[in-house]
């Protein structure tokens, strides 16, 4: 299959169109504005709907309306805009409305910087909105994965009637890389007989709603959601292991730092240091069991978590999985500074020295 050179953000938009996205609602924010720009031209050509909303709040609620009425709907933004969408994401999760949300992360808190960051891990995986809910969070680490995951995300969302979030960062959004439009696995999906799309002869009216006034009803609804989340965790958890078989130190990283780590591994191996990479692909559900199994392996002496975050956010999940079996150390920067290959190799060696 022929490779084509695509910019990350434009590839995200094109991937969504190819996945049958019917409508996109967005608002400009750096570094993701190429997504709405591309959509504004190409989605109507494909028979879809593009609306530039007055705010990220409105955009996510337009998604709620369109997806609640049965459409494949999508929005994208970057960190501060994703903060504004949290209310809507909570409602989408509560009302079980499937949709795809892309966060092209930049540095925070507040306005922060427009440069790449991973400071929204907690927000994405813990649910930045109110209530007990989860969104499926896919974290691609290159442009090819990004287009594959965007296409798959619509099916995952529809299968579980749940929002799916793609978290990438400004680097993936802005960079160009050759990709293949390879076919992604398509799922057998249930009909959207729950959608509020007009009765059209149906014997009952459909309601899209997250309100359960009676405590028992709300509890029951939450139990139902929990069962769904357990099924997602069972079926959809994804990760990648690189050179972990005989590694002394394992780097845990996702997205761009995981990619930088691949180069660090080459350098370390050339120097005779045995290092591996454990890369969560779904941040929620987090690949806890797989990481626990690694922590129990006799060859593994320590973990080095690397993120574009000042104090580490995924670090919590790594520690919860490792459960004290091995030391877990941290390397990270915030504010758009990316960890370098040199820093990673030095940190791996320092960790190794510490445990030997």
């Amino acid at each position, binding site marked *: 299959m022929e490779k084509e050179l695509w910019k990350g953000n434009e590839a995200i938009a094109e991937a969504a169109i190819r996945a049958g996205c*019917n409508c996109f609602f967005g608002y400009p924010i750096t570094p993701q504005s190429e997504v709405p720009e591309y959509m504004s031209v190409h989605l109507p050509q494909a028979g879809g709907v593009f609306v530039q909303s*007055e705010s990220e709040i*409105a955009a996510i*609620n337009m998604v709620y309306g369109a997806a609640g*009425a049965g459409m494949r709907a999508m929005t994208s933004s970057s960190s501060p805009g994703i903060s504004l969408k949290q209310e809507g994401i909570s409602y989408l999760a509560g009302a079980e409305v499937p949709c795809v949300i892309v966060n092209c992360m930049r540095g925070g808190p507040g306005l922060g910087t427009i440069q790449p960051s991973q400071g929204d891990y907690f927000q994405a995986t813990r649910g930045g909105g109110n209530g007990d809910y989860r969104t499926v969070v896919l974290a691609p680490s290159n442009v090819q994965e990004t287009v594959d995951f965007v296409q798959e995300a619509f099916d995952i969302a529809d299968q579980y009637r749940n929002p799916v979030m793609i978290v990438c960062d400004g680097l993936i959004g802005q960079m160009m890389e050759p990709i293949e439009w390879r076919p992604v696995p398509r799922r057998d999906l249930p009909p959207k007989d729950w959608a509020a799309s007009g009765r059209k002869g149906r014997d009952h009216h459909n*309601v899209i709603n997250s309100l359960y006034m009676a405590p028992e009803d709300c509890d029951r609804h939450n139990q139902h959601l929990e069962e769904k989340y357990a099924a997602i965790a069972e079926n959809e958890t994804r990760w990648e292991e690189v050179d972990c078989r005989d590694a002394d130190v394992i780097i845990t990283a996702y997205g761009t730092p995981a990619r930088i780590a691949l180069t660090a591994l080459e350098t370390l191996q050339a120097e005779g240091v045995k290092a591996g990479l454990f890369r969560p692909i779904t941040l929620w559900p987090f690949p806890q069991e797989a990481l626990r199994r690694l922590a129990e392996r006799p060859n593994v002496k320590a973990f080095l978590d690397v993120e574009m975050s000042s104090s580490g956010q995924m670090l919590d999940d790594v520690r919860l999985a490792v459960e004290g079996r091995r030391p877990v150390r941290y390397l990270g920067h915030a504010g758009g500074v990316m960890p370098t290959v040199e820093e990673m190799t030095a940190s791996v060696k320092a960790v190794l020295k510490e445990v030997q």
Partner: protein
Amino acid sequence: MAIVYQKSPGLTDAELHYCPGCNHGIIHKLVAESLVELGLLDEAIGVCPVGCAVFAYNYFSCDMLEAAHGRAPAVATGVKRTHPTQAVFTYQGDGDLASIGMAEIVHAAMRGEKITTIFINNAIYGMTGGQMAPTTLIGQKATTCQSGRTAEQAGMPIRMAEMLSTLDGCVYAERVCVTDIPNITKAKRAIKKAFEKQMNREGFTFVEVLSTCPTNWGMTPLQAIDWLKTRMIPYYPLGVIKDTGAEVK
């Protein structure tokens, strides 16, 4: 025996939760009857607010979406843009529409979204227990302005129908009330007209319905109707505020 009156099939059999003397029930009926009479019920999609009408999805028999506070016009935009031939409406109160949802309603009107918004103005937050709304009148007491609203502290009340009518995307704005049969008849006519203009794809249509809240106003239903007539209508005058179709035709 001849049937002389029947509940509209646009409403479900659910028992309304509204307080005695509240006008929501009448307004629900008018919206439901309008949808049925225009043959729109089977395809209609409604969006309800947060506030007293939050359970409207239990009462209207068409498909419904429950929106977050103030966001109904954005939700309706998503529905209408993807279902352009179907009737789409929002049903919103004054806290929902004129306070937290101001951006959404203004921009839906600006874009000329082909939806109908039924705006219930009762000059107070009902569901949360009688707090001051943007529509609360000067001197009117509420739980967050217990000595009465002052212009100095909270500004002057907002006239939504007039404000939205300044936007080119808004093709129809009328203010009505349902205090008596002649006004109920006028209100129904306005609601039907709004839906007709929506289905003609003319633009955004808006019906503001002045409504009573005896519970939070601390009045009997009859006193409340009297207060609406003597206090609200002078500040919120009834009638057609904008009807571009009328000018064109």
